[in-house]
């Protein structure tokens, strides 16, 4: 088991390297010259040159051959690429072109509001979908099973944007049960989060329940479940002790795969409910073409995902004793 975990740990930096490479190519090389954006329209060529020098755009892209010739071997790495590869892992993302502030500072500020939205949503979604699917396992083949499957397909088929728009208009606008939008720190802010969390859970429930239902029904057909019943184990214990632990592997995989969905979820939800989190920031940066922020966000979310996957694989090893032999 430990050898397996160690191998996974050693593989992780390779993936991080790949992510750095992709973010560099996509957000630093291709988009053109951010110096122009910083300088604003109508700025003179000399101002642009000055800004370029400030943010390191005057350096060669990949390797600095000229610099190496003049200043020795070490300067070979004085290029945009190596600067990106050196700075980004240390969470130095430069400045936001649009907000004129350090990107790391902006991200730090946005993380709190985002987590306050995604963590409750994540937990509520997981708890609801797993309890529903466990429930269905007992109702397999009945009308209830069919109804829930139909409800899932319907839920999955409504575009998320429409869910938000209709939900916000109906529950906050027409019924006035929740504030339409807003943000506040501390306990006073909770009321602003209720509706976005509910809508996020609603949107994710369809596909989650359908997935877990398939997993659990598959597991419920397993021979060891029959053995448990034959021993005299009650239904509740069979579901929670025997079935759930075996289904955990699929559940964990799904949970990690849900992380990007949570990000997407918060992106739209934060925008519509004016929650100043990372998703809001992302939409803002996209419309203002603030590449440093986009690159930093991409890197951080990817890092979270990689970390999540690492945790998943370690959890596999802990949950499933068979893995240790591989």
């Amino acid at each position: 088991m430990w050898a397996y975990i160690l191998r996974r740990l050693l593989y992780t930096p390779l993936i991080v390297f790949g992510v750095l490479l992709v973010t560099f190519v996509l957000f630093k090389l291709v988009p053109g010259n951010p110096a122009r954006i910083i300088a604003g329209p109508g700025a003179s060529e000399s101002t642009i040159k000055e800004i370029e020098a400030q943010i390191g755009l005057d350096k060669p892209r990949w390797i600095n051959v000229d610099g190496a010739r003049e200043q020795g071997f070490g300067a070979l790495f004085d290029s945009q690429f190596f600067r990106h590869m050196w700075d980004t892992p240390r969470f130095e993302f430069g400045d936001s072109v649009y907000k004129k502030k350090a990107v790391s500072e902006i991200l730090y500020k946005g993380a709190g509001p985002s987590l306050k939205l995604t963590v409750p949503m994540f937990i509520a979604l997981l708890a609801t979908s797993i309890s529903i699917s466990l429930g269905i396992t007992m109702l397999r083949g009945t009308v209830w099973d069919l109804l829930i499957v139909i409800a899932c397909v319907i839920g999955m088929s409504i575009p998320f944007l429409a869910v938000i728009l209709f939900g916000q208009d109906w529950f906050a606008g027409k019924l006035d049960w929740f504030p339409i939008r807003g943000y506040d720190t501390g306990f006073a802010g909770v009321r602003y989060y209720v509706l976005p969390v509910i809508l996020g859970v609603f949107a994710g429930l369809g596909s989650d329940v359908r997935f877990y239902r398939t997993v659990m029904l598959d597991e419920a057909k397993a021979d060891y479940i029959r053995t448990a019943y034959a021993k005299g184990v009650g239904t509740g214990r069979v579901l929670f002790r025997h079935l759930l632990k075996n289904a955990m592997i699929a559940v964990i995989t799904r949970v990690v795969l849900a992380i990007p969905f949570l990000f997407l979820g918060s992106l739209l939800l934060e925008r519509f409910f004016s929650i100043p989190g990372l998703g809001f920031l992302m939409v803002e940066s996209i419309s203002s073409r603030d590449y440093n922020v986009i690159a930093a966000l991409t890197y951080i979310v990817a890092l979270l995902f990689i970390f999540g996957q690492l945790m998943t694989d370690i959890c596999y090893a802990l949950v499933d004793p068979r893995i240790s032999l591989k």
Partner: protein
Amino acid sequence: MPHAEEKPLLDVRDLSVEFRTADGRTAAVSNANMRIYPRQTLAVVGESGCGKSVTALSTLQLIPNPPGRITGGEIFFGGTDLLGYDAKQMRSVRGNDIAMIFQEPMTSLNPVYTVGWQVLEAIQLHRAAGRAEAIDIATTALREVGIAEPRRRLDEYPHQMSGGMRQRVMIAMALACQPKLLLADEPTTALDVTIQAQILELLRHLQSEHDMSIMLITHDLGVVAENSDAVAVMYAGRVVEYGDVHNIYNNPMHPYTRGLLESVPKLGQTHDRLPTVMNQTPDASVLPGGFTFTPPADAPRDEVSAFPILATMDKEADTPMGRFLTDTALRSPNLYEVAERHWVACWAEDEAAAKLRLTRPDVPYRRGVAVAEAG
């Protein structure tokens, strides 16, 4: 007969089980009758899909529902009808009075728990034993089924054991609470031949140790002869022949039983080709009215007419041969007593069969008698 007055431990009466599938309803078991006496082994024989596993699972009410449903009959265990039990009463029977082991030892144990956890669970469900005491019982149980270093093995996971070893664990788990009846659903089918013999020997040994009855489900007739007292031959959900193991072997009456016995290769005989029972297993759902068993070509003509197997269809159903209506449905033949401790399914309308007595099949415990006769 010293044990003739003894009451049967398990008495299955007219059991019918039905499965609903996409193609309509299928009678998995129709009017099955069988009895098991204390310390007796009843072998239930038949090819896969003939309803023998379903009969055993019905006893513990473990039929997956839906699609399965027990549509009729009674299952008396020690005098009370198990089918009248509610879920809670049934749980106290399972694993405690009646235990079951299965065909696939590789998948029948929960892969994510240690063997000890699973054996302990079986014990603690039915005995008010503390952890230490339960571990003692589990260790003893494992030792009894021939597992070396039982205490250490308790901490192992199923995947660390071989198939034979896992089946031993299954048996230990089943016997931990000293059940009166063990349902063994093809316990050796998935194992190597050498291991098969060991497991059967173990079951025989444990049976005499614990004074337990066994329902041994198998399609291996070689296993039946040396391990059972009575035999029930099942075909397409029906018991077609029932009797004392000697009667069945020495004087098989039903063409299907004969076919089964003839298809077993025997030492010292050469065959160009082994006789087969029939071309294909009938799927109970596609048996239209009037479907008859096709006996081997060399069977005497008069037997063929006396022992047809007719499906009972209680509603219309689609078959590849067309849609069949209730009108064409026919009764199943009943079991008639043809000799002492020997019953066969046949039509009483037949002249020869008309003289026979229609009774419930019942082979009282006789292993003791056999020993007495031998001595």
